[in-house]
C-alpha cells in the first residue's frame, strides 16, 4: 500500500460514474474497476460511497438499472446511462474542462 491520496476529487465522482457507464451497461464493481484501471490507480472508489452515489444518480434520473446475469452467472445490478444522464454528463464534462483549464493556467502562471 502506498500513502498516496487515492480519494476521488470532491464532486467529480458522479461525473466519473456517468462517463464510465456511458460506454456500456456496467455493475458496481465493473465501474469501480474501470475507474481504477483507466486512472491507472490514481482513483480508488470505496464501495459504500459508490453504491450510495449510484442510488443518488438513479433517483436523479441519470441512471437506469436492471438486474442481469454476469458472465460468472451471478445476478448483478447493471446501470445504464439515460438520456437525461447523457445531457448531465455533457454539461459536467464541459464544466470540468473549463475549471481544470483555469486551474492549470493559474498553476502555470505562478510557476
Amino acid at each position: 500500500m502506498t500513502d498516496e491520496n487515492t480519494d476521488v476529487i470532491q464532486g467529480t465522482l458522479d461525473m466519473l460514474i456517468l462517463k464510465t457507464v456511458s460506454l456500456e451497461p456496467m455493475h458496481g464493481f465493473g465501474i469501480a474497476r474501470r475507474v481504477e484501471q483507466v486512472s491507472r490507480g490514481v482513483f480508488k472508489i470505496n464501495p459504500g460511497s459508490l453504491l450510495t452515489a449510484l442510488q443518488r444518480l438513479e433517483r436523479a434520473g441519470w441512471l437506469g438499472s436492471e438486474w442481469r446475469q454476469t458472465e460468472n452467472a451471478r445476478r448483478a445490478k447493471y446501470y445504464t446511462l439515460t438520456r437525461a444522464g447523457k445531457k448531465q454528463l455533457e454539461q459536467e464534462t464541459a464544466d470540468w474542462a473549463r475549471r481544470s483549464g483555469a486551474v492549470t493556467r493559474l498553476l502555470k502562471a505562478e510557476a
Partner: protein
Amino acid sequence: MAGWRSLFHGLRNLLQPGKRQRDVADEVEQYYEEAAAALRERGISAEEARRAVRVESGTMLAAREQAHSYGWENAVSAFFADLRFAARQLAKHRAFTLTATLTLALGIGANAAIFTAIDSILLAPLPYNNPDRLAVLATRYSHIGETMQRVTGPDGVDVREQAKSLESVSLYTGGEEGVQLRDRATYTEVTWVDENFARVFQLQPIAGRLFTDTESHRAALVSEQFARDNFGSAQAALGQALHIESEAIEIAGVLPGAFHYPRKTEVWEVFSLQPESKSRTAFNYRAVAMLRNGASFKTAQTELDSLSQRLQAAYPEDNRNKQILAVPLAEALTGNARPTLMLLWGTVCIILLIACVNVIHLQLVRSMERQREMAIRKALGSSRWQAMRPVILESLLLAMLGCAAGILLAVPAVRMLVAMAPKELPRAGEIHLNGWVLAFTAGISVLTALIASILPAMRAAKVNAADAMKQDASRGMGRKGAATLRDGLVVAEVAATFVLAVAAALLLRTMTTLTTNDLGFAARQMLVVDADNPAHTEDDYRTVLRQFDEIFAKLQTIPGVEHVAGVMGLPMGPYGSNGNYTARGGLPVDPHNKPWAIFSVASAGYFQTMGITLKRGRDFNAQDTYDNPPVAVISESTAKQSFGGIDPIGKQIQCGLDSDKWMTVVGVVGDIRQDSPAEKPGPALYMPMAQHPHYANQIHIVLRTKVKPLTLMNIVQARIAQTNPRIAMRFTTMDALVNESITTERFRAVLISLFAGAGLLLAMLGVYGTMAYTVAQRTFEIGLRMAFGANRSVILRGILRHAATLACCGIAAGLVLSLALGRLVAAMLVGVRPTDPVSLGAAALLLLLTALAAATAPGWKATHIDPLKALRTE
C-alpha cells in the same frame, strides 16, 4: 422531476422495506465477490483475496450500512421505529398510560365541549344572508351611559330616511301573542314588521309572496313550521285567515324553515312604514338594518353620530343626550352570553393546565425511572435530540390518545351543555361539533403534548451519563433538583384548583342568595295561566273585562283553589310596563329626573293571591270601575321615593300608561323583586284592571292552590273555555317562572362546580402521585430510620406535613390569584363579593383536606414498611 422520482423511490422502499434491504445486500455482496474474483485471477488464493478486498474496501457490513442509509425514507422509518418503541413503552406501563390518557381526556374533552359552544355561538356566522352587514339600532343616553337595543318610532324613521350608509332599515315590535285559528287558539311569537324587513334579511318566500306597505287588508307571513303544523303544507296556508287581537289577517306568504328572527317568531304581520307611536321618548320599537355594500360599521356610526347631533339640535327636549348606535347583529344577539362563555373557557383552560401539570408530573416520575436508560443512550453517543425524542414521542402518543378520548367525552358533554343551557343563551340550537372544533382540539392536544414533554425531555437531555449511573434514588441519594421541581408542580396544581374552587364557591353562594332571597311574594303553590282574550273595539275590551270577572268567580269555586286574580305585569312574567310618573303633594321633583316605577295592572284580590302584604290603605274593589274616579296602589319604595314621611293615601299620582288622568293613591303594599331574584326590590305602581281595559285583555291569571298547582290544569282550562273558547291559554307555575329567571346563574354555578370538581380530582391525583413516588423512593431511608427505632407516627406525620406544606403554599399562591382575578366574576355575583371570606376559607379547607387525604394512603404505606425487607432489597 427528480424530486418526484426520489419521492417515488422512497415510498417504494417504505412500502417494501425487505426488498430494498435484499437488493442492497445483494449488490454489496456481488461487489465483494467480483472484487475477490478479480484478485484470484491474478493468482491469489481465495482466502487471501477476501482479506485483501476487506483491507482495501473496508468490511462488507460497513459498505452495506453506508449504502443503506441513503434516502429520505430512512429518517421516516427511524421515526416510525421510535414511535413503535414509544408505543411499546406505553403499553408496558399501563397504569401510567391510563392515568395520563384519562387526565388529558378530561382536560381536552372539557375544552372541546366549551369551544364547541363558543364556536357555534360567537364565531360561526349568523345563519342569514350577508350576516356581516346586518346591524341592530340601539339608543344610548350618553349622560347615564345606558344603552338599549330599542329606538323610538320617529327616530327610526329619521335614520331610515337619512342614513346613506344603511341600505335598508326595518322597525319591528312584538312578543308572544294568542293567535286564533279557525277552530282553536294558540300562543305564538308574533312580530309586527314593516315591508323593509324582507329587504334587510333578503328573504325569499317558499310559497306565496312578500307583503307591501299598501296592503288593502292586513297580511302576514308565517314560518314553514307554522304553516305545516296548522294547515298541512306551505301551499295550503296561503290565503288562510288567522286572528290576532280579533282582527282577521290573511297569510300572504311562507318563509323558509330556518328563518325565525327575532327569537322564535312564527308569524310576521305587516305594519306601516309610518309607525303608530309618534313619541321620541317611547321606545316602542326595535330596528334592524343592512349596511350598504362596502360601508363599514365605522362609517355607518360616523354618519349616525352626526345624524344624532342634528336630532338633538332639532328636538332639544326629547332627544337630549340621545345617541343612535349601529351594533353588529351578531354582537347584539350574543353579547350577553360572552362573559359566561369566557368564564367557562377560562375555567377549562385552567383544567387543561392542571391536566398538563399532572402529565408532566407522571412523565418526570417515569423519566427518573429511566435515567439509567438515558445514561446508557448517552454513553453510547446519542445526541441531545435523540435523547429527547422518545420522551416527546411518548407525549405525542399520549396526547393523541387523550385527544381521541377527549372527543369521545366531548360528544355527551356538548349534549348536556345544550340541555342545560338557559333559555337566554343565544343560538343554543346551533351548537354542534364540527371540523373547526376537531382541528382546535387536535391543536391543543399537540400543544399539550409539547408543554407536557418539554420539561421532562430537557431533563432527559441533561442527564450526565457518569452521574446518573452512580446515582441511585432508591438508596436515598436522589438529586435535590428533581424533588423541588415535583413539589413546585404540585404547588402550581393546588393554586390553580384553588382558583376554580373559589369561583365555584362564589357562584354557589350566589345561587343560595338567589333561591333564599325574599321575593316579596309567595311563589309556592301557585298556578299561572297566560290568557289572551282577543279584543279590538272598545266594546270588545268591555266584554273581555266582564268575561274575566266571570272566569275569576268560576275558578274560585274549584276545589283546591284558595284565591284567584288577574294581572298584567306578573313578576318574572313576559309582559310588563314601566316608566316615569308624577306625584302631587309629595316631595319636590327634579323635572329632568322624574321618578320611575314598574307599572302593573291588577284585579281586586291580586295582592292577597300573591301574598304581597298590604301595608296601608285598601286593595282595589268592585267600586273601582271604569266610570268611577281612578285609583292606584303603590309599593313602599314608591311611597318612600315620592312622599318620604308624608302619608301617601289620598295623594294624587299620574303616569303615561294609557291616560294622563290623575289617580288617587288608596293603598301601599310591600316591595317585590320584579324581573328576577337577582334584582333589588324597587318602586311599583299598581292600577285596577277595570280602569285600564286596554291592558286587561292579555293577562296572567294567578291561582293560589291548596293542591299541586298543575293538577288543576285541565279543569281550569275547561272552565275558561266555557266562558270563551277563543281565549289562548298556556300554563305554568310561579315556581317554574322563578326558576327560569335564574337559569343563567344556575348554568354557570353547576358548570363551574363540575369543573372545580374535576380540578380537585386531578389535584388529588397529583398530590397522591408525588407522595407515593417519594415514599417509594425513600423506602430504604424509611426502613433504616425504623430499624433505628423511629416511631410510625413520626414517619406518617412527616409525610402528611410535607403534603400540608405543599397544599399551603399552593393555597397561598391561589389566594393571590383569586384576589387578582376576582373582579372578572364580580358582575356575575349576587349578595356575595369576590373577596368573600367564607368562600375563600371553604376553598382553602377543601384543598387542604384533599391534599391530606391524597397523602394518607402513601403515608400509611410508609408506616408499614418492613425495615428488614427494605434494607435487604438488592
